């Protein structure tokens, strides 16, 4: 069968499966809609959490980032897994014991304050929308590359699918579709990785292949070869750091703390039956996540080797067809600086910024003409990092069904995360803002209708951003983690680990952390990007890592304000005592 037929088949079957699950798992109460009734098995929840967590960024972008960053890419690997240790040890069991529906609800009750709840809702909405826009964009790119529909149409198809299971099935529908999506995405990620690991090292396990000798008979280790080739081409060695240690430390910390403070991940632990299940479930989630996260560095290293082998010093007319497909999409470009008809790849940008194509005009070798002014280094090749995972199977010449699998897998990754995010947005509106703050008398059925309506509106807004991406989507990813690390994470930790933290302290702390982190990122990313370099940074920490400092700002401000304001009431201190012991959790409270 043709590869394109296979892609339609795989994507079509997986979509039919998701819609089938959606119809099967329709819900009738807010408890089912918000937390799937609270009876999800810990292993099932772990799998759903893994799909929820692993987004288009993890599936499509991360291995590509690592391929080009080498050691510096470790911040994503440690940052996006280490947060689960914090979740399991410091957050999940206590939030489950508390046993309500949303993260702002927990903060609102523990700090006996509507204001605290609304501040938490603002943090949650900002974090979640930042994230979801990127997912919709990812869906659009996959559709345009593999199914040859345009990006806007792709986003609309994606919205329709999410609409089905998020609006009909709420958390219950999302949980079971996420389990199916996890299976699709992990299979789609590991199968090509195993093939490529076999080709390059002869070892079928990518995690071991990364530490093995090359199969080309040179007797060199993969990483040794990669270091040598890159240094030869003028790059830094793959296994060495190019950033300051302080910055690597802060970025890793901000990503870990941010991971543990992301509402769509935390809320998954409300769905298991008991507090002790929340602990094991976090462990299972990390097992399922680690399968992809330990494979990614191998995929990245193999992709870099393949890329250099297949491009450097190769005549344009001989490079693989897949590069020309991506050139048509504007993600690959080549400027023949020395007019030898061959692609030279080395360190440095081939020209400033993204390629600016001169319509469909073709150059001497048949390449697309770029109007950018070339730089004076020898590098002629521009490549968007995001294509690495998508193009890897084709570069390595793998069969069509593997390519089709990758298409279905990347859609599963994007859709599962988008649905989880849309659910926390809609439940914070219908539950925390409406039911808990402004309209306490609405019935369960009315609240459920409001939740569905909020989900529809959220999908529309997310789709709008997917079709008209704000130019800064890529740059605001740092926002989501930085803000979660500086606002929600410390607020929740202080809920549990201090009995004396009062509402004034918590509110001022969240706002201080939020404003500090927000201003720092906005200043360096948007106001004065020309100053965004190490010597101007606070303690040498880049905007990506500043959430780590923001956390201390939050905690410092909170304790300072607490000293001068009223003590926590006795009933709240009793609530904290109660959260700390697992017994007596039972089923989630209904309202």
């Amino acid at each position, binding site marked *: 069968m043709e590869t394109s037929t296979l892609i339609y088949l795989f994507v079509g079957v997986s979509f039919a499966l998701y819609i089938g699950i959606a119809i099967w798992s329709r819900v009738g109460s807010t408890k089912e809609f918000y937390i799937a009734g609270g009876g999800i098995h810990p292993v099932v929840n772990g799998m759903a959490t893994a799909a929820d967590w692993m987004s288009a960024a993890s599936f499509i972008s991360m291995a590509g980032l*690592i391929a080009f960053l080498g*050691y510096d*890419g*470790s911040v994503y*690997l*440690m940052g996006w*897994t*280490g947060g*689960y*240790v914090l979740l*399991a*040890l*410091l957050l999940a*069991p206590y939030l489950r*014991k508390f046993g309500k529906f949303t993260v702002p609800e927990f903060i609102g009750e523990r700090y006996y304050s509507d204001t605290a709840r609304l501040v938490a809702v603002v943090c949650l909405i900002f974090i979640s929308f930042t994230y979801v826009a990127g997912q919709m964009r990812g869906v659009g790119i996959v559709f345009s590359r593999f199914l040859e529909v345009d990006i806007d149409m792709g986003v609309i198809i994606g919205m329709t699918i999410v609409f089905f299971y998020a609006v009909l099935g709420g958390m219950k529908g999302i949980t079971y579709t996420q389990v199916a999506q996890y299976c699709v995405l992990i299979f789609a990620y590991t199968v090509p990785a195993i093939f490529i690991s076999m080709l390059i090292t002869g070892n079928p396990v990518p*995690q*071991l292949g*990364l*530490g*093995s*000798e090359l199969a080309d008979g040179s007797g060199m*280790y*993969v*990483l*040794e070869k990669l270091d040598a080739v890159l240094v030869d081409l003028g790059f830094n060695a793959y*296994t060495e*750091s190019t950033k300051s*240690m302080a910055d*690597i*430390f802060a970025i*890793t*910390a901000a990503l*870990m703390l941010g991971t543990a403070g992301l509402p769509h991940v935390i809320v998954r632990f409300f769905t298991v039956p*008991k*507090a*002790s299940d929340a*602990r*094991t479930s*976090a*462990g299972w989630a*990390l*097992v399922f996540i*680690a399968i992809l*996260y*330990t494979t990614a*560095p191998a995929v990245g290293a193999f992709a870099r080797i393949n890329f250099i082998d297949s491009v450097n010093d190769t005549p344009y007319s001989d490079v693989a067809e897949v590069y020309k497909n991506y050139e048509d999409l504007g993600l690959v470009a080549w400027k023949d600086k020395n007019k030898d008809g061959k692609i030279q790849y080395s360190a440095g940008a081939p020209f400033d910024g993204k390629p600016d194509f001169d319509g469909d005009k073709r150059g001497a070798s048949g390449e697309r003409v770029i109007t950018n002014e070339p730089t004076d280094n020898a590098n002629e090749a521009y490549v968007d990092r995001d294509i690495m995972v998508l193009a890897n199977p084709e570069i390595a010449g793998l069969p069509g069904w593997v390519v089709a699998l990758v298409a279905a897998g990347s859609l599963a990754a994007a859709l599962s995360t988008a649905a989880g995010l849309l659910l926390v947005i809609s439940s914070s509106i219908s539950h925390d803002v409406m039911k808990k703050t402004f309209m306490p008398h609405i019935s369960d059925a009315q609240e459920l209708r409001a939740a569905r309506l909020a989900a529809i509106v959220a999908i529309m807004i997310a789709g709008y951003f997917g079709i008209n991406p704000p130019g800064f989507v890529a740059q605001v990813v740092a926002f989501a983690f930085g803000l979660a690390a500086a606002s929600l994470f410390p607020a929740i930790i202080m809920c549990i680990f201090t009995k004396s933290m009062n509402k004034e302290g918590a509110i001022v702390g969240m706002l201080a952390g939020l404003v500090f982190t927000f201003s720092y990122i906005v200043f360096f990313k948007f106001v004065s990007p020309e100053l965004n370099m190490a010597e101007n940074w606070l303690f040498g920490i880049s905007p990506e890592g500043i959430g780590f400092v923001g956390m201390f700002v939050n905690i410092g401000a909170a304790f300072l304000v607490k000293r001068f304001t009223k003590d926590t009431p006795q009933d709240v201190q009793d609530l904290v*005592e*109660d959260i*700390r*012991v*697992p*017994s*007596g*959790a*039972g089923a989630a409270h209904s309202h």
Partner: protein
Amino acid sequence: MSPQPNQNGDAESAGDRTKAYWRANLKLLGKLLVVWFVVSFGFGILLQPFLDQFQFFGFKLGFWFAQQGSIYVFIALIFVYSHRMRKIDRDFGVED
């Protein structure tokens, strides 16, 4: 809700037992978080240049901790915590 009294709970009040339970939990947490910090921030970042002089199969050791080893240890930490806490929960009669 306060924890149910257990067989050795007659002499001490429920409040004391909860405090002792919480202390036991914090002690375990503390130990595991030290390991968490050492394998990631320690071996993977702060000591990476030093550890990279040692070869571990085809990896430099610091690089391996940063891109592989720390993740395996994270998984182990969560299951150790979950397992030990079950026992602590039972010992203090506060299991769910």
